[in-house]
């Protein structure tokens, strides 16, 4: 088989099952690359090589003893640091949780542990998942494996860099306004945001509870489907969890890869890069997107343009709703039960200690959002801001419902641009927020959406987004797999294979 650190998780799983590889070999190969390359790449916040190898040995021993193991047993895994892991440091990218070792596992972490996956480490992220470039991490920047002077996307930028850069076969990200799909798009990966409520949020450090959802970030569509199936399902510990059977996704991906989309109705969203709405979209991104649409058409899909006017207000609605929920959620960081406490010298009271702790423990973007959320929720402004944003959310949901009466999936670019240079938007929150333009509508409506690579623009990956109705995640996988297979066949190799051996300029030299 090909190199352990570039192959798909599905192929690793097969090789482990067949006995061609051991988990120790696979895990060791990844740990070696992490040791050699993560100092520069910055994908991880925490790696425990010893624990990973111990877990890998246990899987190998169980397999050698003839125990029946699940398909994921022995496959290494990286988790975004927003996922609570028992005994393993978890920070959510924030200094306020530095050194915290949680006393329990998130439901999805427990599921992956029970499935026999081997935890390589916890990946870097924007602090509390607030950001689109991972530059808001309190700890380090993460570089894009395609160009080290550029962002890996965010907020799940450590997860995207790890998988694209060969430092993990696949990873878990979380998506509140696009934080799985956008980093996947800019690093040439597949990233899927499941239907809201279909993956448990128990043990995910909350940012915006009505939007947060965890999902897979992988090298192939099939891998994403397999990982999604492993973490999905009803969880009584999450009261927003949907009580329905785990969806059949890998089969949808395999069927999609056969390339028959006859009868599938695809709606191209005008408001996301279409006529009259292309401002801010790079021509190269739109060109790759249109080529991908043509490929779908070539496989039998019926393509039409669809208008969703309320999508124009998704960005302002999101940047009211998410900060409002965050200002409430982050009140739990009070310096009492876990994490940092500052200024407790006996002279200060609880309020003062709390204010000093939060001042030192939170970074600027988190503070901005807490303040903005407090404002939007305050008496006198609630109706005009938060209340109005919630009504816009209803309008967006209605646009989706109307569109899905006519089409099976809606498609758009995942992000208006390719990865931008590190440092180029950090001082301009509005410019940073624009990176989420295409991903926000699906977040606000709670519908599933996938990003799949659709080629390069200026040498950097472009993402294609497919959105489906709630609980129609299988449609996302079908379309994404068809597109992936058609492109791989035309190209003769995977897009990610073009990453190997390319020069890695430290500085951006383009004008």
């Amino acid at each position, binding site marked *: 088989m090909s190199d352990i650190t570039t192959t798909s998780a599905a192929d690793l799983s097969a090789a482990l099952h067949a006995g061609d590889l051991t988990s120790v070999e696979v895990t060791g190969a990844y740990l070696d690359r992490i040791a050699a390359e993560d100092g520069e790449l910055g994908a991880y916040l925490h790696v425990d090589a010893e624990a990973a190898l111990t877990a890998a040995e246990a899987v190998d021993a169980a397999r050698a003893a003839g125990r029946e193991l699940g398909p994921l047993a022995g496959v290494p895994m990286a988790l975004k640091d927003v996922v609570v892991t028992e005994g393993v440091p978890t920070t959510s990218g924030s200094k306020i949780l530095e050194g*915290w*070792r949680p*006393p329990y596992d998130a439901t999805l972490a427990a599921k992956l542990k029970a499935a026999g996956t081997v935890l390589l480490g916890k990946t870097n992220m924007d602090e509390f998942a607030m950001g689109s470039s991972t530059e808001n991490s309190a700890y380090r920047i993460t570089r894009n494996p395609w160009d080290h002077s550029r962002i890996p996307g965010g907020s799940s930028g450590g997860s995207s860099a790890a998988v694209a850069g060969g430092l993990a076969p696949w990873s878990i990200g979380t998506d509140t306004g696009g934080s799985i799909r956008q980093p996947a798009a800019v690093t040439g990966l597949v990233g899927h945001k499941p239907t*809201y*409520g279909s993956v448990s949020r128990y043990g995910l450090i909350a940012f915006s509870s*009505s939007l947060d959802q965890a999902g897979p970030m992988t090298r192939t569509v099939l891998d994403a489907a397999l990982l999604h199936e492993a973490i999905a399902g009803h969880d009584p510990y999450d*009261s*927003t969890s*949907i009580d329905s059977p785990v969806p059949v996704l890998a089969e949808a991906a395999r069927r999609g890869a056969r390339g028959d989309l006859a009868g599938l109705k695809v709606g191209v969203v005008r408001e996301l890069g279409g006529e009259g709405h292309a401002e801010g979209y790079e021509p190269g991104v739109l060109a790759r997107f249109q080529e991908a649409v043509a490929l779908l058409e070539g496989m039998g899909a019926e393509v039409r343009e669809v208008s969703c006017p309320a999508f124009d*207000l998704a*960005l*302002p609605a999101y*940047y*009211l709703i998410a900060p409002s929920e965050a*200002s409430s959620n982050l*009140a739990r960081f009070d*310096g*009492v*039960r*876990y994490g940092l*406490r500052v200024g*407790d010298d006996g002279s200060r*009271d*609880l*309020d*003062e*200690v*709390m*204010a*000093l702790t*939060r*001042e030192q423990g*939170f970074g*600027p973007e988190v*503070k*901005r959002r*807490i*303040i*903005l959320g*407090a*404002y939007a929720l305050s008496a*006198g*402004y609630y*109706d*005009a*801001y938060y*209340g*109005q944003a*919630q*009504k*816009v*959310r*209803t*309008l967006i*949901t209605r646009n989706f419902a109307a569109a899905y009466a006519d089409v099976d999936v809606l498609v758009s670019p995942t992000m208006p641009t390719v990865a931008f240079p590190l440092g180029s938007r950090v001082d301009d*929150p*509005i410019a940073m*927020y624009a990176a989420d333009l295409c991903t926000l509508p699906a977040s606000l409506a*709670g519908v599933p959406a996938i990003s799949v690579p659709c080629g390069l623009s200026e040498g950097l990956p472009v993402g294609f987004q497919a959105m489906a109705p*709630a609980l129609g995640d299988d449609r996302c996988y079908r379309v994404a797999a068809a597109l992936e297979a058609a492109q791989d066949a035309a190209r003769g190799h995977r897009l990610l294979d073009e990453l190997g051996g390319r020069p890695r300029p430290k500085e951006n030299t383009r004008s």
Partner: protein
Amino acid sequence: MSTPSPKGHLTRDEVAHLAHLSRLAVSEEELDLFAGQLAAVLDAVAEVGKADVADVAPTTHAVPMTNVMRPDVARPSLPRDVVLAGAPFAEDDRFRVPRILGEEA
């Protein structure tokens, strides 16, 4: 009910007040920085006011569910020592907190 601030009118004093309500001991420099940035953000998000929302109900959640119940079954709590191990300060098997009342209280 007052009307929202006009464009770009989140003042430095308002930011200071909101920071205090949010228990954030922001510095003078941060107040200057945030007041400018938040005014710009507020301008952008105020766009939601353009939507015609007559007779539109708010959406609080993508999945409409109310009163989700589960069986009332006792299960063990996390071990006390494990939980307290994560606390910044613990004493006598409890979280230790700074005083909550002023000297005169």
